[in-house]
Every structure is written in structure tokens, then in C-alpha cells.
């Protein structure tokens, strides 16, 4: 079968299809399977592109870009099972909108301007502030269909919430960024949409004070949906203060009771000021926390640091010391932080610190093109990952050289 091409206008600022000699936009899984089979035969490399917002091409050129945004058939929501199957090309926001009509949602909260595809969100394992309560894609994806490196259509998992039949290959595909295959649909466990949500914001002079209050919130009889500690571009751009952003959700009765508890806790805290936000303000706060404030200058790079939760306080003070002006956001009870990295900053300092505390680190920024710089990783794990890559993509056609350790 001849490869179908379509003209495609590259979106300014995104590497997407400009990095590929040709773009195809299959509308069915079978069509995609034929395209990949042919790409294997003709030894052509493939870059998978969804919404294009988190694409990482490592400055490389590819023979073929597969645009997944036409893979939108087969959405299936079974409210009584609290599961749904979503085609990979469907926009994340559209899937959520459809699920919300039956009072359910995929409780992931990725940074999204509305154009992210569900396949892209999962392939890049994106997360946001509600990770505090709901974890990440690994906690919610129950089945996947992919086209693998031999052009075969492969299914893993089932539309059930508990399953240990065979290997859990879903886990491998999440966060694999199109290097093991092309995700064509995903099934999720769902969560009931809370009847009510409300957001509180509190401002502190120091990181230590913000963290003390976060710990008090954690110990209190509260179940926040999100609890974020942030400074700089992800809150109020020019302020030096640290902010806590807290979202409560649930039944009206529960949210009101929790709001009362939280208000009295914040009133007694060392917060300079705090408030319960209006709905509009809350939407703005969370958007800023996810995507950054539009007023700030473009960011050079970010580092996502994973760390043992007990180390939160030391990590915060260490960061303030080495880079007092840098923006940062922490999910203190998940042990993850995203930290602004400037061009001048010595990245090896961050890597050494992450290694020293027994954590992990990933850099994200268009200037950081070498996978080795982007994803420092220890050799033993890397060697196993390389074996997996060769097993599932034997001809090395899927985005070669773009992933961890140059995979």
C-alpha cells in the first residue's frame, strides 16, 4: 500500500513534522499497522506525533511522522463499570468532556492547552497538581492497544479494574514516548466527578513556613485533591514568596466541612495572607500552576526531580540556596518537584544532588537535545531498557536516539 501523505502546516514553535520528511495521518489501526509494516521493510524511522505539545525529537530528522490525531474512532464509555476506552488521537479535553456527561472522569490533570491527545498525554506520562490524590497514569490505565515495531496490533490488559493476567505491558508503554510502539487506544479506570470543588491559596515568606503548614494539612482530617507548593512563574511571577495551593473536592457536605477545618488551620498558620478563591480565580491559579504565567519570560529548561518524601525540606532549602530566584513547584507528599533551570545553572549540581538523595531527575527544554543530558540514568537499568527496546522494536524504527540513554 502506498503511504498516504497529507499537507500539514507546522505549528510555530513546535518541532513536530518539520523533523520528518513525510507525514501520514492514518484513520484506522489497520491502516497504521500497514504503514508501520512498510516502514520496517523500507527501513524508515518513525516519529509519533499527537497534539505535539510535548514532542521531543532530540534535534533529529525522521523519515516519517505519524500524526495520530485522526485515530478518533472507538470511544466507549461504560459508566456502570466506571471504565472507558479512548482512541489515542482524541483530544484529552474532549475525552474528559464526554466522560463528564455521565459524571465521571480520568483523574489525571496534565498541563494541557486543549490540544493534547490522550495518546500523547500517556506516552509522555504527564501529570499535574491532582497527582497529590490520584497518582499518575500508571494508577489508571487498565488496557492499551499499540502497533509494535513489527507492525503488529497488540493488546494488553482488559477493561477490568483488577487484573494480573500475563505481563503488565501497559506500564512499559506509559512514559515510553513512542519508542516502543504507537499507542492506538487506551482504557482507563474512572473516578466519579466530585460534586463540588474549592480552592484555597496561602502565601508564606519562607519555604520552611509553607512546608510546615503543608505538613499540618497533611496530618489534619482533610483529603485534598491537590496540594501544591510553588514559587515564581507557577504562581505570582515576580513575588519571592512561596504559595500553597490547596483544592478540596467531594460531596458538598464533605467539602464544606473540610473547608471549615482548612480555614481555621490557615488562620492559625504563619501565612501572610490566605483566601478561598472564587471559581474564576481558582481556574486561573491552577492553569498558572500547570502551564506557567504568561507574563514571564520563556523558560530555558525545567528539571523534574523525584525524591524521598522525607527529604522535601532539605531539597527546598538546597534549591533556594543554589538558585534563589528560580521558580519551583513541589508536590511534597508525592516526592516530586519541577524546578526552573536557567542557562547559566550548572546542571551537574542538580544531577549530583538527585543521585545523592537517592532520587531521580529529568530535564526538559528544547536546548537540551542530548538524551544523555536529559535523562541521566544508571547503567544497569539502562542496559535492561535497551534490551526491551530491541525486543519490541527490533528494527529500531521508533524515534531512535531520542529517549533515555540514547535509546
Amino acid at each position: 500500500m502506498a503511504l498516504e501523505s497529507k499537507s500539514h502546516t507546522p505549528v510555530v514553535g513546535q518541532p513536530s513534522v518539520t523533523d520528518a520528511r513525510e507525514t501520514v495521518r492514518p484513520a484506522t489501526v489497520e491502516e497504521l499497522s500497514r504503514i508501520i509494516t512498510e516502514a520496517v521493510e523500507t527501513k524508515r524511522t518513525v516519529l509519533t506525533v499527537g497534539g505535539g505539545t510535548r514532542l521531543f525529537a532530540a534535534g533529529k530528522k525522521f523519515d516519517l511522522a505519524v500524526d495520530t490525531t485522526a485515530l478518533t474512532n472507538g470511544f466507549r464509555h461504560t459508566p456502570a463499570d466506571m471504565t472507558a476506552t479512548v482512541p489515542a488521537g482524541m483530544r484529552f479535553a474532549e475525552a474528559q468532556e464526554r466522560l463528564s456527561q455521565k459524571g465521571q472522569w480520568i483523574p489525571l490533570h496534565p498541563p494541557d492547552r486543549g490540544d493534547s491527545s490522550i495518546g500523547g498525554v500517556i506516552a509522555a506520562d504527564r501529570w499535574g497538581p491532582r497527582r497529590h490524590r490520584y497518582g499518575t497514569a500508571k494508577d489508571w490505565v487498565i488496557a492499551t492497544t499499540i502497533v509494535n515495531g513489527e507492525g503488529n496490533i497488540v493488546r494488553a490488559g482488559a477493561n477490568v479494574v483488577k487484573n494480573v493476567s500475563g505481563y503488565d505491558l501497559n506500564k512499559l508503554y506509559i512514559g515510553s514516548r513512542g519508542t516502543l510502539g504507537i499507542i492506538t487506544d487506551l482504557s482507563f479506570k474512572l473516578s466519579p466527578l466530585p460534586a463540588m470543588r474549592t480552592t484555597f491559596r496561602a502565601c508564606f515568606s519562607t519555604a520552611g513556613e509553607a512546608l510546615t503548614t503543608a505538613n499540618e494539612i497533611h496530618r489534619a482530617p482533610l483529603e485534598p485533591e491537590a496540594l501544591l507548593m510553588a514559587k515564581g512563574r507557577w504562581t505570582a511571577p515576580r513575588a519571592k514568596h512561596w504559595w500553597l495551593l490547596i483544592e478540596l473536592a467531594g460531596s458538598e457536605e464533605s467539602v464544606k466541612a473540610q473547608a471549615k477545618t482548612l480555614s481555621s488551620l490557615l488562620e492559625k498558620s504563619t501565612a501572610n495572607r490566605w483566601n478561598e478563591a472564587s471559581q474564576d480565580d481558582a481556574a486561573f491559579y491552577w492553569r498558572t500552576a500547570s502551564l506557567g504565567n504568561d507574563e514571564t519570560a520563556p523558560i530555558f529548561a525545567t528539571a523534574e526531580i523525584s525524591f524521598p518524601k522525607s527529604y522535601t525540606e532539605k531539597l527546598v532549602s538546597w534549591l533556594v540556596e543554589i538558585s534563589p530566584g528560580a521558580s519551583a513547584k513541589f508536590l511534597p507528599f508525592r516526592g516530586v518537584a519541577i524546578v526552573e533551570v536557567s542557562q547559566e545553572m550548572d546542571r551537574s549540581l542538580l544531577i549530583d544532588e538527585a543521585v545523592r538523595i537517592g532520587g531521580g531527575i529529568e530535564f526538559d527544554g528544547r536546548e537540551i537535545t542530548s538524551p544523555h543530558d536529559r535523562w541521566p540514568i544508571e547503567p544497569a537499568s539502562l542496559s535492561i531498557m535497551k534490551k526491551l527496546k530491541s525486543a519490541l522494536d527490533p528494527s529500531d524504527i521508533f524515534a531512535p536516539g531520542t529517549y533515555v540513554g540514547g535509546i
Partner: protein
Amino acid sequence: MPDGEIVKFGGRFESTSGYDLVGLFVGSEGTLGIVTEVIVKLIKNPESYKTFLASFDTVEAASNSVSSIIAAGIIPAALELIDALVIEAVESHLKAGFPQDVAAILLIEIDGLASTLSTQAGEIRNICRNHGATDFQQARSEQERAQLWRGRKEAIGALGKVTPAFYTNDGVVPRSRLPEILEFDIEAGKRNGLRVAHLCHAGDGNIHPIILYNHEDDTETKAAMETSREILQRCIDLGGALTGEHGIGTEKLTSFSVMFGESDEAQMLAVRSALNPSGKLNPGKIFPTGARCGESKIRQTVAGGGWL
């Protein structure tokens, strides 16, 4: 690893770079490497919990209640269905306080913030009543709660006293299909001349049909295997899975291809070959090799015991 190398994946934190090797190893049944140490994430104890016991005249009414509870967006911490055969065994040996003369009970526990629980408790009670619950009780003390859970946890042992042998299965169906599969299990047992008891993690759609048989009787043993095979086939037909907790092992090898197509299996085998190239780690587990008829193999693996 098979070459003797000691490798550490993950750490005392949640996210790692690259492929999720921890996720891949969990549930790999010793076919990729031998796990020598694990680090687990802990969660905060819930502020409070409530435990309920609902009684029903029919298994169908109980399983319909389960489906309706989930459909209402309530996900209890535990939602267990126990049928009359199991209740009888438990009460004759343990006295957990399960009601007699009922077809099934639901043991339901919800946990979380005290401010959330009372609303949920009311909704659950209404759902059970609407489906014809003949009784709905809340455990009034920690002692009562412990007694109920003891009945649940030791039920499998109690069953050993009422049958020479039993075969506990472990299938999964989408949660809304629970009433159908439970009805099917009992019918499948009847067709094969055997009784099937139920202890289910019903809220997850995870069924544990317990097939009662006499292991010294070849005909009954064969009938037990056939009943089990039919039940698993039905789970898959309903969009479910072969196992929710216990794994494939050697027991479910013959049903593997009912759930997975050739390319699905090839993908898993490629992963196994990558990490365990000689196949020396747990050979014969998970993947059917060679001829796909293992009736005699299965028989050796089915002991008169249970694992729940």
C-alpha cells in the same frame, strides 16, 4: 537477573526515568528475574470507617446491589459477596455472626473522612434496600467488625470441613457483569453435577467461584476442571480477564489463548526473551508452550486447598 547480576530499579521515590521496570516486574511471576527486596509506598490510615452487613434472598439481588453501588460512583474499600454455601460452612465452624437462611450477604466497608461517610452509608443502605435486602446492619463496635472480617478471612478454611476438596478460581469481569457471571457459575456447576460456592471481591468484579468436588473421584475431578474452564471462558466473553490476583502460573496455561491473541502473546514472549533469554527462570509458567492441551498438567496443580 538470570545472569546473576543484582539490579535495583526504582527507589524510595515515585517516578523513575525511562521504562517502568518496577511496573513490568510486578506480576511477572518470577519469569523475568528473582525479586529479593521491595520498597512499598505506604498510605495514611483513613480517619474513620464503617462496616455493614447486608442480607439477601437471592444471589442475584446481592450482585445487583454491588453493580448499583459502583454505578452510583461509590467505591467502597471492601465490597465482598459471600453466598449461602460459604455462610453455612463459616457458621458451623466459626460463628462469625453471619445470618443463616439467606442466599447471600454483602460485607461492605467504606473509609475516609467522617464527614463523607454518613452520606455514603445512607446511599449504600438505600441501594441494598431497593434491591430487596432483607436486613442491613452496621457493625457497632470494633469487636463486631473484627468478628465479621474473621468470618470472611477464614471462610476458605471452613469450607474444607464441608467438602473433600475444592477448587478456587479467580476470574474477573467488568463490574456491571457481576450478576451474569455469578448466575453462570452456578449453572455451569449444575450442568457438571457440582456445587459452586462464592466468595467474591465483588466491588472489583473479581470472582472466586469455589467448585466443590471429591478429588478421589476421577469423574468429579474432570467435572471440576470443565466447570472451571467454562467459567473462565465466560469471564473473557464478558470482556473480563483470567485472573485478578492469583496469576496464570501453570494452572491457567490452557486458558491463556482464550484471552490473548497470537500477537499479544508474542509481545510478552519478546519481553521475556529480552530479560530471560534462556528461559531458565520459572519455565512453564504463564505461557503455554508447545501443544495447547494441558488437562493432565492442570490436574496435578489443583490441590484441595484455596488461596484468597
